[in-house]
């Protein structure tokens, strides 16, 4: 069974600073995908960034980047130059085609950006 763990229920960061959200996972699969989704107060989840497990290079999307450590089964999200609009719940998710394309989510980290 796949499990995803986010050990930080709440975090805060000053505007313009950098913050890192942690995520670990457990799987016996070798080919899988990892995602970070953002859920603003309006409740619609939006994809932030995606990482394919077979790629060694860490994914980057503008101010968002990941630190993917496959051996350690760790997938952290770094947000640089934090903005007020980054305030949201952040979910880490795992997916493998061998398990039917369903997502396995962590419990989420509530991030507050302080002006």
């Amino acid at each position, binding site marked *: 069974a796949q499990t995803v763990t986010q050990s930080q229920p709440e975090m805060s960061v000053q505007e313009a600073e950098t913050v890192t959200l942690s995520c670990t996972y457990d799987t016996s699969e070798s080919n899988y*995908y990892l995602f970070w989704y953002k859920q603003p107060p309006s*409740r*619609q989840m939006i*994809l932030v960034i995606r990482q394919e497990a077979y790629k060694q290079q860490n994914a980057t999307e503008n101010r968002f980047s990941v630190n993917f450590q496959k051996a350690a089964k760790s997938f952290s999200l770094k947000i640089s130059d934090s903005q007020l609009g980054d305030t949201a719940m952040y*979910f880490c998710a795992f997916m493998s085609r061998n398990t039917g394309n*369903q*997502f396995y989510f*962590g419990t989420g980290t509530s991030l507050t950006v302080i002006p």
Partner: protein
Amino acid sequence: EPEVTQTPSHQVTQMGQEVILRCVPISNHLYFYWYRQILGQKVEFLVSFYNNEISEKSEIFDDQFSVERPDGSNFTLKIRSTKLEDSAMYFCASSEVLSYEQYFGPGTRLTVT
């Protein structure tokens, strides 16, 4: 940008009643999903649907649940006889066949009293 939509945004029902939650996936997507999130807990997979049939379902998705694609645009989740523990936010999602990104709707908050 195309979006997944869900109706209603909030549904209140009495225990034992049937409810139907509606979703309109993105038009060129062929995989559809339902997830639920009980307050304070993680988002949990319920079911995936492809080519007019269930392709995967979780242990949560028991005989009280059913899904249907009644026409070319809607995707519904029916709960036949609601229980208090069905109170949750229900999210619909869709994806292209070969894409691994799932697009989520805004959710329907179901309250069973």
